[in-house]
């Protein structure tokens, strides 16, 4: 759409800006403030410069959490994106009762409070009272997510796939629906194979939404907190302590304000940087599609 330049538009943005500044900038400044100071209590602070940042960057504990986080996010993306595309391709095309039912049921996990998602899987995976755990136990698997690190990982990954694959499905489905029928007819005349229909018609049309889906899944899995916190509490040991869980332990559990603040800033910057790359790619491809 053609837009007119009007600096007075700032006045319409102002209420929003004041509110977001209040809930984003002020707290963020507190974090910056803590990240360069130390205290012996009694609210006496003194300047320590970049010491906390150096400590965090050299900290083994943070490194481990970061590595776990990256592995987790990569696994999540590697499973959810292809699975989501696959399911979206199998969504019913015509609208009707079955389509409505599919849409509603698919969206359901997305709308469950995160701690309830955790609770559901905490119960579901238990060998004494949970369906999954009980079945695995009966089949002779030595499965126990509270004791074994691998089992805890598997549980959390399946939980996340359960929780969020539908997001990818819904977005891809929206992209697929925007493809005119004529494209498929043309492909039929050309006797295109199923794969080339996917590769040259469906995938390019889905590119935009797929980028959004990947961006969202990256962001959200990188800051995952509630679900693993409820299911495993970060354990066994530190096996499922991801960045957010580690950060909350440091800040609220141990009250190490300085290191936690430095940690926060580095954490935020990493997410920001990667998301910015995605966003740029997204905007570029938007322009390329002429949308």
């Amino acid at each position, binding site marked *: 759409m053609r837009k007119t330049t009007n600096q007075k538009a700032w006045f319409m*943005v102002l209420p929003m800006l004041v509110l977001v500044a*209040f809930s*984003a900038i002020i707290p963020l400044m507190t974090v910056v403030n803590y990240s360069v100071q130390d205290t012996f209590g009694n609210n006496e602070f003194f300047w320590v410069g970049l010491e906390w940042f150096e400590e965090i960057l050299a900290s083994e504990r943070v490194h481990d959490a970061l590595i776990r986080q990256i592995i987790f996010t990569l696994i999540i993306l590697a499973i959810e994106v292809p699975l989501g595309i696959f399911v979206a391709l199998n969504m019913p095309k015509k609208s009707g009762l079955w389509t409505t039912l599919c849409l509603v049921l698919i969206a359901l996990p997305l709308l469950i409070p995160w701690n309830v998602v955790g*609770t559901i899987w905490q119960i*579901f995976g238990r060998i004494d009272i949970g369906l999954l755990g009980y079945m695995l136990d009966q089949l002779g698997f030595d499965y126990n997510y509270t004791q074994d690190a691998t089992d805890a990982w598997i549980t959390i990954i399946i939980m996340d796939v359960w929780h969020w694959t539908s997001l990818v499905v819904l977005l891809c489905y*929206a992209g697929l629906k925007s493809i005119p029928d004529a494209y498929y007819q043309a492909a039929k005349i050309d006797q295109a194979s199923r794969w080339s229909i996917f590769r040259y018609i469906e995938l390019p049309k889905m590119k935009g939404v797929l980028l959004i889906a990947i961006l969202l899944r990256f962001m959200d899995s990188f800051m995952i907190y509630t679900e693993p916190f409820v299911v495993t509490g970060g354990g066994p040991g530190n096996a499922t302590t991801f960045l957010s869980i580690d950060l909350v332990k440091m800040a609220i559990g141990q009250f190490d304000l300085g290191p936690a603040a430095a940690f926060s800033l580095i954490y935020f910057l990493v997410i920001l940087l990667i998301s910015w790359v995605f966003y740029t790619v997204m905007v570029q491809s938007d322009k390329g599609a002429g949308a």
Partner: protein
Amino acid sequence: MKINKSALVMTLYILFLMLPIYWLINMSLKTNQEILSGFSLWPENLTFDNYLVIFTDASWYGGYINSITYVLMNTVISISVALPAAYAFSRYNFMGDKHLFFWLLTNRMAPPAVFALPFFQLYSSIGLFDTHIAVALAHTLFNVPLAVWILEGFMRGVPKEIDETAYIDGYGFFTFFRKIFMPLIASGVGVAAFFCFMFSWVELLLSRTLTSVDAKSIAATMTRTVSASGLDWGVLAAAGVLTIIPGALVIYFVRNHIARGFALGRV
């Protein structure tokens, strides 16, 4: 044959999604003895006692009331500041608009874990700790950007000629906005409100950090039960089922727009 294959894939996927939810419902209808004594695929002694506990115990149903209160506050606040902002973004170029738009998105990216402690201190220092409004304001951190993005997406679909015609016809800005523009983007406002509601409803970390007694959310009530000894699985499951219901009810109305909402209005 092809349709059958698709139907099979969908059925399997939906089965995978529904099983854990079924299990939760199943457990919520059992007594604690039955849950712990043996394994059964459906409740043998059907009981609604677990739900009764929630509806009669103030610490449980109070949690729901608190959650709904701050969620509604948050939705109203978010939508009312987002509407004019989204209109400005969709209609005008102004200094720094692109940067501002991206900066908004960065707030959606901010890990709540980063903000938990500063929020706690900020709201404690202004005396709002453990109030509904504190949680409502804290949740604007990600809901206002979300609402702005979704509304902007919908507003872009309304041709600008409509604005111009209305001004020529002698409408003032506010009459135009209320009488003409709002009905046109009503579905957009509905979707944005739905998503504000949802994301505020599902969030745990901030609402747990900012409340202790008076405004304790249902999510926090549930996690605190988990950490207590002598876990009451049946009641916990019943509480879980009840938190799913609001989403399940509204989802039907937004089913055709839900992808757009999750994509921050970018589909």
